[in-house]
């Protein structure tokens, strides 16, 4: 895909206003006002939301019709059996009562759930599994890399662009001092990581000598780079200078909705202001940690909150405030929030009021372009691998859909392939099963170029979690196999 650079006169003019407002950074106009990477993402924005530690998907989206979940064999204390009457999102699933604030977005058609997401040979290490998700690879995958998947998206789109035309705010890690691996690893661009607005100013005495110091701090970071490490530090310093000025502008935006305390609330409130201030940043990364609930996931005293309800409170409050901000400011159609967690948790509760590391998990997608639905089928609590859910949807299939149908780029150069098949179900491309964004591709399941009974058979097998059983393909019962049968199976599969 050819990258076309937008004429940047308007933005340059805006940049001048930016810098004149930033009293502490008087001399950095020339470099960053030329920034020109905003056509990345076609005006669409992607917010990656990490739920660090391994979120318990089964207690996040509750399969209330599943006897194994509702019964006392697996989760006698942990399972949630009430309080979700108004939070049902289809005939099988309900939101955790602590996510009540998000039901509005479901009702508005701005929310999707993808279930059974994971990867082959699940790794139960936080570190390794997080790495896989951030890089978009796993052991044995087509692509092996240490670069983040969104950093590869950047490189793929901006190859050959003069470095002084890369907008320092092309990507942003908000609410954290470290840079998430998903947006790190490009050799030409390192996104800013901003813990909060208040700390992100350059301090110096407010006099001529203070200004002189800041000027020379810039100069000593622009000398000839004699080693790769010096070069790296200079690039980081340059991004820091430019983004300090940008953040000063963003931080002046008025608050619309209040956010909960914590890194996620801080991060999303910053993203809201950056978007509302008019910066065209296409990719954001925010994080919430604490989901590693080996113990005290719930509290036996109903009057006390366990750790998981507290985390979901902060999650729902932060996401709800952010989506409300986006809606109120007219940005919601252009914003997508994609959540991820390195793994789900063990299906059976442990004996210390928690759950251990698991495998397949559910995730959420919010915002513009999202087609409301529950995708990926129901988790099968009767078919476990060492006590953990098996995956049916490769997480890279989720990325592929976002890249292709939201960001508008070919996912193959970024992910190495779009064939994230699962041979257990004979599904060549699991991204076809999860049209939470973009067109339904369900018809041609086996990828043989036409839609026929074999496709219905495969879809039924997948929906019913069977690999070998044979079902009648006349789903509508009208005596023949037609497109109407496919439509019906599609609707059933997608929970619509």
């Amino acid at each position: 895909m050819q990258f076309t650079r937008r004429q940047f006169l308007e933005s340059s003019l805006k940049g001048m206003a930016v810098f004149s407002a930033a009293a502490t950074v008087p001399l950095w106009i020339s470099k960053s006002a030329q920034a020109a990477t905003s056509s990345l993402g076609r005006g669409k924005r992607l917010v990656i939301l990490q739920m660090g530690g391994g979120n318990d998907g089964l207690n996040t989206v509750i399969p209330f019709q599943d006897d194994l979940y509702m019964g006392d064999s697996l989760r006698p204390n942990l399972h949630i059996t009430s309080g979700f009457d108004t939070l049902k999102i289809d005939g099988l699933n309900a939101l955790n009562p602590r996510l009540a604030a998000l039901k509005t977005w479901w009702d508005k058609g701005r929310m999707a759930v993808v279930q059974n997401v994971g990867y082959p040979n699940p790794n139960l290490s936080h570190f390794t599994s997080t790495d896989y998700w951030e890089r978009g690879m796993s052991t044995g995958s087509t692509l092996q890399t240490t670069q983040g998947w969104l950093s590869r998206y950047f490189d793929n789109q901006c190859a050959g662009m003069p470095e002084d035309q890369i907008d320092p705010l092309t990507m942003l890690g908000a609410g954290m001092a470290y840079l998430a691996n998903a947006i790190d690893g490009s050799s030409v661009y390192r996104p800013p990581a901003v813990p909060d607005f208040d700390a992100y100013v350059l301090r110096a005495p407010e006099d001529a000598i203070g200004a002189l110091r800041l000027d020379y701090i810039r100069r000593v970071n622009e000398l000839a780079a004699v080693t790769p490490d010096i070069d790296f530090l200079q690039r980081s310093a340059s991004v820091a200078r430019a983004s300090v000025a940008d953040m000063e502008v963003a931080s002046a935006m008025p608050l619309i909705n209040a956010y909960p305390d914590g890194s996620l609330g801080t991060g999303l409130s910053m993203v809201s202001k950056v978007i509302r201030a008019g910066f065209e940043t296409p990719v954001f990364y925010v994080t919430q940690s604490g989901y590693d609930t080996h113990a005290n996931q719930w509290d036996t005293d109903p009057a006390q909150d366990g750790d998981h309800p507290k985390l979901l409170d902060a999650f729902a409050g932060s996401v709800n405030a952010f989506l409300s901000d986006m809606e109120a400011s007219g940005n919601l159609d252009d914003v997508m929030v994609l959540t991820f967690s390195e793994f789900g948790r063990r299906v059976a509760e442990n004996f210390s009021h928690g759950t251990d590391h698991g495998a397949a998990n559910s995730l959420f997608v919010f915002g513009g372009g999202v087609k409301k639905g529950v995708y990926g089928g129901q988790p099968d609590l009767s078919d476990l691998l060492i006590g953990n859910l098996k995956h049916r949807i490769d997480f890279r299939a989720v990325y592929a859909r976002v890249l292709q149908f939201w960001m508008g780029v070919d996912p193959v150069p970024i992910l190495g392939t779009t064939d994230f098949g699962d041979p257990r179900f004979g599904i060549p491309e699991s991204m076809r099963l999860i049209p939470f964004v973009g067109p339904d591709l369900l018809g041609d399941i086996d990828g043989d170029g036409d839609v026929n009974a074999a496709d219905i058979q495969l879809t039924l097998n997948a929906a019913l979690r069977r690999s070998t059983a044979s079902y009648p393909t006349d789903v509508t019962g009208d005596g023949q196999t037609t497109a109407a049968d496919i439509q019906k199976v599609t609707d059933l599969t997608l929970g619509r």
Partner: protein
Amino acid sequence: MALFDEYQVGADGPWTTAEAAHLWRRAGFGAGPAEQRDAAGNGSQAALRSAVDFLVDFTPDDPWLDRPAGLTSGGYGDPLADLPDDESDLGRVKTPYDLISLIGHWLYRMRYTRQPFQEKLTLFLHDHFVSEWAKLVPLIDPAVIAGNDGNFPDIQQCDGGTLGVDLLRANRIAARMMLDQNYLLRRQGIDSFRAMLISITRDPCMLMYLDNVVNEKGRAQENYARELMELFSMGVGNYSEQDVREVAKCLTGETLPRFVCENDWDFSYGFDAAKHEPGTKTFFGKTIQENFAGQEALDVIDFILAERSKNPDVTGLASPYNTLPATAVYMAWKLLKFFVNEELSLDPPDEAVLELAHYLRGTDNQPYPKRRFPYDFRAALRKVFLSKFFYAEENRLNQYRNPAEFVTHLLRQGDFADLFATQFGPGTQMTLMGMILFNPPGVNGWYHGRAWITSGSLVARYNYVSYLMDTIFQGAGADARIDALLAANGGPIPDADSDDDLIDYYAERLLQMDLNAEERTTLRGFLSGVDTASPALRFRQKVRGLIHVMMSMPLAQLK
């Protein structure tokens, strides 16, 4: 053994203040000019060995720094009845009771110790055997435990006791527990790794942090068992999920059995035989017999240390490397990454990793007088600090100063002890650089190397210097502090009329390397721009400004 052969002064290069500064940056927190000169000595092989021994052969505690009085393991009494007598800033640093003063306490040690390698090794171990403050406090916090909600089944109801429980007490208890762990790491880091693993398995903070405190028979809790093998010893790929479950069973009953809230918060370790899983356990294909006296935990650690690497890149090597234990390879890799080169590979293992693993295991058949037992980290690092590998060009200035190093390096230029426990002091500033001591971001510790450098952390680094030079140095007494800063460095105070003299003075202290012409010209340009009427004021403004600018240079972020 090639890479870790001793660096030969002359044939391999010189032994000067530059090499000595490299040693001190890696083994400690940077050297002042006097330390550099002492370490360089007369430039001989003997001077090199003497410099390494001076750093490495420390006694278990720095006799110069008193361990805080009255802080002992076990029963803590009522933490509120035991406030520090000395409520001054320094008093709070010496007897920490919350996270800020706890961080200040350790920074104080890093700054004032005469045994910097001891603190550096402790930092390595803290990053390796992670426990997080943020998880401990809520566990201790009465909001969790007062109702006896079952997380700690043995806890008596506190609401009937005479001692009210509150967050203040929870903070103080957590501070003491983490301080105990910190001193455990400091003392036992130079002991055998086997002893270290046993101690940390039974460390009260660790028992709570990785949930082994609730690991009971019939209710095996695998969190600690997994991290013990994955992160603390062997590394991934060397054990199965079945091994995790069986090891967890072996560790049942390793707990805090006397944890009650009757005026005596006893968080001390004990083995509770009634909670121990009976029966044999099988892991690594071996079976151990049941034991109700805590022996199984020791067996686990011995088995772990003996278990050979399953990595085909190790097993496929020629003898003797093909029989290396997984733990030797993994720990050699972690030590070399932390102290020498972040880029070294574990999988497949680099030659340097294999060589040091071989040495750590004690299977190299080379007598070495300083090595006392297998997995002697201090002896291994002594070998590293003496080696050709350590002084090779590609291993100089190829690491990034972490926030503790960056902060301490500047604190060592003067006396800032009155700031260490203050709310906006250096400990707090470090959090914006991405490092909260006693609260790493996750069980695998901090990300190192280039991960330390982000726009946010750079801004925090620049601002930290301004904080010391401007926020602290203002109002009455500011001039005196600048003068003291210059005097505290020892040696002649730079000539107030020579900008070059001032540049040399601080380059030697802050950067510890030669400036190139372009860098020098730029710094000169800055100093010539500092123009105020009073010469005395001008000089002090130059000192403040130069430190701010110099510590913001790329070179000041490297070590």
